[in-house]
Structures are given as C-alpha cells and as structure tokens.
C-alpha cells in the first residue's frame, strides 16, 4: 500500500512537470507559427555570428 502511494505521487509529479512544459510551450508561442521554425533551423548560425564579430572589430 505504502509503496503504491509513493509511486503514484512520483508519477503524478513527473506528469505535472510535462503539463507545465506544455503550458510553457503554448504560452511562449510555439504553437502560433508552425512553419517558420522548420525553415529557421536550417540556417547556419556560425556564419552570421563570426561575421558580426568581424564587423564590430572593423
């Protein structure tokens, strides 16, 4: 009996964590634009960041 209470408490905590993650994802706007991030992830960050540094130095 005791162990099942502990297990359920634990599983609920984990599940609540996922629910919180879902809330965060929705509220931060991840469900608003399903299209752009799929394109954005293909960009190479490196080029722009090194260029930026170069530019600042010059």
């Amino acid at each position: 009996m005791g162990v099942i209470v502990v297990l359920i408490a634990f599983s609920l905590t984990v599940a609540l964590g996922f629910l919180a993650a879902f809330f965060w994802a929705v509220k931060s706007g991840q469900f608003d634009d399903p299209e752009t991030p799929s394109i954005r992830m293909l960009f190479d960050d490196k080029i722009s960041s090194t260029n930026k540094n170069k530019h600042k130095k010059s």
Partner: protein
Amino acid sequence: MSSSSTITTTNCYHCGEKCVEDELISDEKSFCCAGCKTVFEILNNYDLCTYYELDEAAGNTVPNGIERKRFDYLKDEEVIEKLIDFRNGTTVSASFYIPNIHCPSCIWLLENLQNIDEGILSGKVNFLKRKVTFVYNSTSTSLRNIVELLSTIGYEPNLKLGQLESDQREVKDRRLWLKLGVAGFCFGNIMLFSFPEYLNLDQSVSSNSFKIFFGTLNIVLALPVLLYSSVDYLKSAWAALSQKGINLDVPISIGIIALFGRSLYEILSGTGSGYFDSFTGFIFFLLIGKIVQQKTFEQLSFNRDYKSYLPISVIKISEDKELSVPVDKLEIGDQVTIRNQELIPADAVLVSEETQIDYSFITGESEPVLIEKGTLAFAGGKVIGTQSDFVISKKVEHSYLTQLWENEAFKGEDKKISVTSFADRISPYFTIIVIGIALLSLAIWLQIEPSKAFTIFSAVLIVACPCALALSTPFTLGSTLNILSQNGLFVRSTSVLESLSNTDTITFDKTGTITESGNTKIDFVGSTLSADELRFISSSCRTSTHPLSKTIYKELNTKSLLAPDDIHEVPGKGLFANFGNTSLWVGSQNFLIEQTDLSYSDFPDSSESGSVVHICIDNKYKGYFRFENNLREGIGSLLAKLSGSYSTFLLSGDNEKESSRLVGLFPNRKSMLFNQSPIQKLNFIENLKQQGKEVLMIGDGLNDAGALKTSSFGIAISDDTSAFSPACDAIAEGDSIKNLDTYLSFSKAAFKVILFSFGISLCYNLVGLGFAVTGHLSPLVAAILMPLSSVTIMAFTYSVTRVIAYRMGLRIWE
C-alpha cells in the same frame, strides 16, 4: 540598321531577373538594375551574403532609389504609437506585414538585420503570415530608420491606412490549447487510476483504503477539468438559458453536471467509483472538436475594407514645400503629389497636364485611363508614369468608393454568424426529450424500487449527453473546409459553410471574374505585315511601359530584336520609332491623325469592344491590333452546368460592348446587367435576397465589395491569394472557379454527412439509454461507450467527406 539582337542571357545575381538593358557589374556579379546592385553592396558591406547562398537569386527587384521624404510621417509620435505593438521604456516592439517575404533567405536576412542597424535588438519572421516583428531600442534607431532600411533592401512593409484606425494588436487565444492540455492530462491519469475498477481487482482486504485513495485523487484531478476546461460550455449554456433559449451547450452542460455530481456523490458516499474517466474524456473530445472548428487560414485576410488599400501617408505641397502627411488628416483643397505606381487616397482633381490612371484595384480592368487637367480622379486609382499633382476634392471617408462602406450592409455585427447552426436548432427538442425520458424513468422506478430511482435518473442524463452529436458538425465542416482549401477555395470559417450549401442564385462580376485580367488575346486586323515590319513593331513596343505595348511585345514574341535609331513615346497615346529609312507609328487613332498624314477617313469603322492599337508605317495605314480579355478557362461549361439548377446573373461595371460575346453564357439578356455602380450592385443583391433568394456573389474588385458583403455568401477571386481581395466569406484561386458547381454540391453533401452522423450518435444514445433505464450503466460501460461514440463520429465524418470529395473529382491529399 547595324544593330542586332542585344539580349544577353545573364541573370541578376540579386533577384534572378534577366539583365536585359544596362547590365551593371559589381564584385564580378551582374545586376539588372541599380536598385539590386545597391542592395548587394549593402549586404556585402555588412557580410550578409549568406543571403545569396541559402537560396539562389533570393532578392526582390528593387525600384530605383527610395526617397527619404516618403517616410516623413513616421516621425509623427501619434503615428508611431499606433503602429507599434508595445513599448517598454526605450525597448519598442513593432510588426510589419511584408508581402515580399517569399523564401528562407528572406527569413535569414530579416532576422539578421541587427548587423546593419545596431539599434535593432532582434527580428522574428512569421513566414505564413509574411510578418516580421522587430524589437528595437528607440534611443539608437527609430521606426522610420527601420522602415527605410527595409525598403532599401527590397522589403518594403505594407503600411496602410487601416493600421492607423484601430488597435490591431492581436490578442492570441491560446487558452483553448491549454484547456485541451489540462483535460487530456486529467483524462489520462484518471483512466489509469480507474484501472483497478475496470478489472474488478479490488477484492483484497486493503481495497477500501485503495478506493478512498484513488477516489480522492480522481476528484482532485476532475476539478480542474470542470472549473477550467469545461467552463465555456457551462457559461454558454447559462447565457442561452437566461435568454430563454436552448442551444447545444444546454444538453452538454446537463451531461457535465450530471456526470460530475453523480461521481462526486458516489465517491463521497462510498457507493461506487464514479464516472470521472468518462467525464474528463468527454470534455477532452469536445475540446478537440472545438479546435478543429476553429481552423483558420492565417495567411489570408477576409475582412479588409478600403482602409487596407489606401496608403498611410501622402505628400502634400504647401507653400512650395513637400510634407508627408497622414492620409486621414487631408482636407479638401490640399494639393498632393502622387508618384508613379502610387494610389490616389481620396477623390481629387488633376492639376498636372495629364496622367494615366489604373483603376484595376477598383474595377479589375487593367488598362489605364488617360485623364486631362481638371478631371476628377477617384480614390483607389493608381497613377502610372509620371508623377502628378492633384487637389483633394473630397475627404477620404466621403470619396466615391469609400461611400460604399457607409451603406447599411457594413453596419453592425456580422449577421451571418448569428444564424444558428443545425445542431443548435435541434437541441431544444433533444433536451426536452432527454429530460422527459429521465423524468419518466424516475417516476417508473419510484414505483418499482425507490432506492434506485435517482441513480437511474442521473444515469439517463449522463448517457444522453450529446457528445457525438456535438462533434459531428465541427468534424464534418472542418474536413469540408480542408478539402475545399486543397482545391483552391479558402472559406473563412466553418460557420459560413451552411450559407454556401443553401445557394440558389449566383451572380458574377465580369472583369477579372468571368474574364481573366492578365490573359489578353490580341489579333491583327488589316493588311498582312511582313516579318520585318513585325520585328519593327515588336522592337519598339519593348521599350514602352504601356500595358498594351507590353502585351503586343509579349504576344508577337519576335526572336531577333532591333534597336531603333530614334524612338519617341507620348505616354498614354502612342509611340514613333525610326529604323533606318522606315518610320513607324503605333498608337491611338488621335495620335496617328496628329502625327502622320493620315486623316480620319483612312481608319476603318471600328466597333470593336476592347481596346485597339493602330499601326502606321511610312505614312501608310496598316491596320490595328485588337485586344480582348479572354474568358477564364472552363467558365463557359461551368455556366452551362450551373444554369440547370441555379439562376445566374452577370453584374458588370463595364458598358454593354461585350454583351454579344456573353449572350450564350447567361440564360437571357435580362440576367446581364451592365454599367452597374458599386451601390447598384449592392442593391441588386439586396433585392434578390428580399425575394427570399440565397445569393452567392463572385467578384474580385473593390467595386464588388458591397455586393460581396450583402450576399449570403461572397467569394472573392484572386489569382494571387496573398494579394488584394475585398471582404468576403471565401477566397478562390483564379483557376479553381471552374469547379464552382462541384464545390456547391460538395458543401450540400457535407450537410447530409452531418445528418447521417447525427443518426449514428443518436443510435449510441439509444443504446446507452437502454443500459441506463434498466439500471445497468456501470462506470465501465460508460467509459467504453462515450469515447467509442466520439471516435466513431470522428472516423466516419473524416472518411465519408473524403470519399465523397474523391467521387466528385476533388483533390483530397496535398
């Protein structure tokens, strides 16, 4: 005549256009114009050339030189406040709609603009909406700087009058997703905790403490579903009841309360384990239905009015100084300068000598009109060619075109939405029957076994809950909307589909709807032209910007072109060119009479319906080119098919010249109306509606806006769905209109599907009622029956609508 073809095959490094005339070279790359070259140089300077690596020829062709004066009005604090999203100290966020966003490179560049302007903190693009949001520091840059930067690199934001009017800050409704998340979370967990109950495992000694433990957990998990996820249904039912009406949410709420109350009672009294699993599952499925129903086409805009087309500002001339002022502050008598390709914001009188105005925005007619000094030009016309001065004669909101929006049709709330759906209409009967059965079984059981009577009563209320009924409409209409959109008809929302299916009368606009504006047919009437002569005509027309010359050049499609020794164009009238010892005149009758030895009698009696361009070579009249707008492909057979079951009408703003060509398409002369003003079109539809007709209007221009709005269902045709379209219920891609009859019958079929699925859900309710009235509705039966009925309805509506669509020849996959 030494020159020969000079057409090169190099493409512009920036925009990919062919570099036809003066090819410009910078950094060993070729550019088609100075604008493209400038953009490249800017990007190169700031090491942003990744732009070109992501997508070849990513750029937008940039019109030469953006003048700083144009954005003067962006200094006005009042204007800035209306345009920005929010301000937090010196950090400001502003969003722009940029129609030019078209590829991954655009996203990359717009999100890296902080490399050019350090005041920009970040940029974020929404590709589907073609929108970019900048966060910037207002001490180190300004809104005006950003707009100018965007314009310089070919991404001019669309700043329209409408943005100044109301607060357009979008409030995103994400609550539905959260509610669904909560319901799903609780549904899953409660099912898990109800498992021992399903399998009847609790025979052991400790079972009682387990029961209490799981029962308490279930109550705790069900509470947020009742208080958060289902609250919209309860509120809506309460609102309906307090207005003495019954909508579908009333029986749903009865079910919700019965389920929750009964379960709470069972657990607290220790008589059972409750129906919390069915309860949360029920809410979960209902919310899925709601999300399906809310599907919208974010990239399309269905409620634009004239304010979305007029510019925010215009250049006013006062005391010889040019000022950029917001359009809504223009007064009668103000003198304004309108440049090439800019819109006239209000009815105004021309003070320059003459200019050409393109009214295609308003009428759909692409050929510009030549007006002379002192003529009144209407708001919405686009100036073509040289910049011209006008004196405002009416305020923006009182102009000829904008008056349309003063009409009754545009007042008040959207009447179409308030029409109740079929599900709402049957729900009073449904509710009364359910309560009747519940009371009846209560009465009967009170006679037989009073202790069980209330259990049975609540069981009937629980099982009769119209979950499946509530799901049939959103799922069927959601999938109808989806299929129609795959076939090029984008409907505003599921709530207007019923009007589409009820259509019995269809009215068409002519220009741009029945005829295709970009697709002109030309042929030559007169003496046959030699290959050389054709080459002269083609070569000289190439240099002209007039749409008719462009069409001639495009249609003649001559291989080798010549450079004229001398060429001279009178804008809007015609051109003269010299090739060695051949002289050529191309233009209007008046132009040719003025410029050549020809007299009026040399011209044939012209009774042509469309435009004509006359040709004269070496002072000899050769003949004329005749332009006709082609009918859209398949429009003839469409009208023939429609005339069987619908009454069809033509409402045209043009004159009757072309009526002979259309006479076979419409039932009779009376159903074709010409010379219709926007208000007349609106009134015509209003009349039909008063006769009890359900009118479908199809149009494209702003002059159809009134008719589209009054009609029961308005479809705007647009060859580019992201471009211009007036307020309407649906936007159709140009070439999809030939299937209109199929769309109509498909939408009718969709409502039959709804009826059918109502039948299925009623069967489930009957089975459930059987269990309930006999006292056999165990939590397990309820937990199986409710999700099963919901899933059946989802699967049924999804597959049947697709089967029907497939049989009708519609596309059902991407």
